[in-house]
């Protein structure tokens, strides 16, 4: 036991002292803070100015209403949009010339865009908005709703209804989502989805990162010829277990730091965001303690499952090139579990979702997803954990045999037949 502990300690320290660990650990929370704070900061410092547009109105009736619909104010009181010119029912020839002229103005920056309203717009022809920056969604959105509202007002008028302010008429009626759980009801503001997505990405990334870290560590001991020195002092199996525990502990440290910073962001992030830009909020990530415990259990299960495989893969090869090849199938396996989240997200309790979340290779990601979305019956969670434990034990047993032989073998990558023979060496 003492020897396993020593190997674990060394492995842990070797991991947490690497630059990539420190960067990864610090960068992730910083990134999260950045994601929250940056848009608010950017929006605040955006140089707001009045956007100028020209309207080419082939109907001859819509332009006025559109202009009215664009009557919005910037925070500093200036108008947000200004219709600098309106051309009613131009002839085809004129229109060609006008368009060329307007394009030139847009390119020169004298104009921010021009809107063309076709004759049959009410019959379904689409209006076109020409701008240099279609990425400005707010701008495009404002123009789009102004045209829609104008069209609605026109149609209503055709049916004999005189409406002054269409926006009041079509103004939204909200439907608030409420998540029903055994514990009661929670208003859903996208936090379930956000939590599920964040947890999946974290699980996926850490399974891959720490799986590969295990592979690298085994390979490094081989290429630096440390393996033989080590197994002359302790059993290969103990070495493997110590190594897996050491890498797991490093992963755990990272989780802990992330969780704490996430908790801090959850507690104070809203304050920061609203301080930077009043009125803004962040999607709340809700992580009940029970979910956190499941996350840790499934992370550990998934980690030991995959890391044992990655360790065996590392023991099989003696060069980086070969390592690339043997780790591919494992990486694909992790990715596969990740990609199937769509199936589960749609319907967490369908037979397919239940079956997928029982397969030990996918369970770490998919069962956690189900728990977050719609907590499944306890027996399903227990069965899933049981299956992971059983499979991991089996894989660890086989991997240890491959590992024991592999760490002393150099040269060509073994074929499947050779691997089979390795398993039968005493």
């Amino acid at each position, binding site marked *: 036991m003492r020897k396993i502990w020593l190997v674990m300690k060394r492995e842990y320290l*070797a991991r947490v002292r690497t630059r990539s660990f420190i960067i990864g650990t610090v960068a992730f929370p910083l990134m999260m803070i950045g994601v929250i704070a940056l848009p608010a900061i950017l929006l605040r410092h955006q140089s707001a100015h009045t956007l100028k547009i020209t309207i080419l109105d082939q109907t001859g009736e819509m332009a006025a209403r559109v202009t009215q619909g664009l009557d919005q104010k910037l925070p500093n009181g200036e108008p947000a949009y200004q219709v600098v010119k309106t051309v009613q029912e131009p002839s085809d020839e004129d229109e060609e010339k006008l368009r060329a002229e307007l394009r030139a103005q847009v390119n020169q920056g004298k104009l921010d865009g021009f809107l063309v309203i076709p004759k049959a717009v009410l019959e379904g022809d689409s209006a076109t908005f020409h701008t240099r920056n279609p990425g400005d969604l707010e701008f495009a959105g404002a123009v789009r709703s102004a045209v829609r509202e104008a069209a609605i007002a026109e149609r209503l008028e055709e049916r004999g209804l005189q409406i002054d302010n269409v926006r009041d008429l079509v103004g939204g009626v909200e439907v608030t989502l409420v998540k029903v759980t055994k514990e009661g009801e929670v208003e859903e503001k996208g936090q379930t989805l956000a939590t599920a997505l964040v947890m999946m990405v974290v699980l996926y990334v850490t399974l891959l990162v720490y799986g590969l870290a295990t592979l690298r560590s085994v390979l490094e001991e081989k290429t630096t010829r*440390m393996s*033989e020195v080590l197994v*002359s*002092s302790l059993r290969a199996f103990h070495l493997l277990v110590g190594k897996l525990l050491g890498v797991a502990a490093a992963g755990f440290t990272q989780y802990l730091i992330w969780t704490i910073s996430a908790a801090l962001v959850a507690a104070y992030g809203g304050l920061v965001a609203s301080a930077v830009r009043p009125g803004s909020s962040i999607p709340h990530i809700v992580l009940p303690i029970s979910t956190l415990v499941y996350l840790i259990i499934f992370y550990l299960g998934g980690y030991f499952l995959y890391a044992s495989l990655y360790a065996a893969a590392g023991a099989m090869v003696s060069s980086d090139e070969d390592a690339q090849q043997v780790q591919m199938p494992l990486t694909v396996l992790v990715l596969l579990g990740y990609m199937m989240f769509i199936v589960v997200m749609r319907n967490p309790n369908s037979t397919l979702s239940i079956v997928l979340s029982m397969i030990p290779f996918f369970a770490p990601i998919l069962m956690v997803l189900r728990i977050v979305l719609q907590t499944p019956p306890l027996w399903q969670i227990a069965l899933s954990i049981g299956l992971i434990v059983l499979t991991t034990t089996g894989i660890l047993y086989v991997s240890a045999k491959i590992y024991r032989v592999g760490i*002393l073998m150099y040269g060509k990558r073994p074929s499947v037949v050779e691997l089979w023979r390795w398993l039968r*060496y005493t």
Partner: protein
Amino acid sequence: MDAVVLQNVTKRFDSIVAVRDLSLRVRQGAVFGLLGPNGAGKTTTLRMIMRILLPDEGSIEVFGEPASDRTQDLIGYLPEERGLYPRMKVREVLVFLAGLKGLSEKEATRRIHQWLERLDLAPWAEKRVNDLSKGMQQKAQFIATVVHKPSLLILDEPFTGLDPVNAGLIKDLMLELREQGSTIILSTHRMEQVELMCDSICLINKGQSVLDGDLRAIKQSFGKNTVRIEYSGDGDFLNQPALIENLNHFGAVVEAKLRPGADPQEILRLAVARGVRITRFELVEPPLNDIFIQKVSETHA
């Protein structure tokens, strides 16, 4: 009590038999040479004694008890392929390896400090292994092998890559450890070292023992069938295939291996008859090198 006893040990890898029915005894306190050509099964044998590999058949005893995790701690093993974690500090990696052999951190730190002083590595203690020269890394590895005062030392080619000064230093340390009661198993291709250091040897070829026992006795059993000659003049008199089986020129000295039953006097007579001046004419035991070559080629035939 013997330090190591192997009885009818066999180890197979698939269809290849790496070690076949090997029995040997290493007397406690001896320097034992395990010899053999490349691929003879030396490393496999050492790994089985270290319990890195398990024998398919036969038994291995270390200091009277079956090889186990416990006997592993009694042995210091220097594998042929050396290695230390390149990114760890020298002191850290040595404390770690000593810990794996059962030393407490405090005791390991104390002893390693002494050893580093002794091998002139003290200024490098806090440097990364990477920053050390090959020779210094070898010395650090030697510390890792001996720091737990092993009763049995297994050294696989301990002198490769060392300059004469450091090789001498390591040799002195080995002999000192033997004075203190350690048994040493030395595996090497350098026969002159075996002749100088070993009490007994085992020569294995193709996984089987072909020669084994006390080095002096082995050499005597081969008889004084070699003539060491120093002369000046024409060397033609040595061109006697009927008398001489094999000639080894070392510049100033020639070693001539006689055919069975050949009379060395005959060679002396021929030399005198041709007016060659003889300054040395000595009947000696064959060098280990010749015994090695003879034995190995016999078993190949």
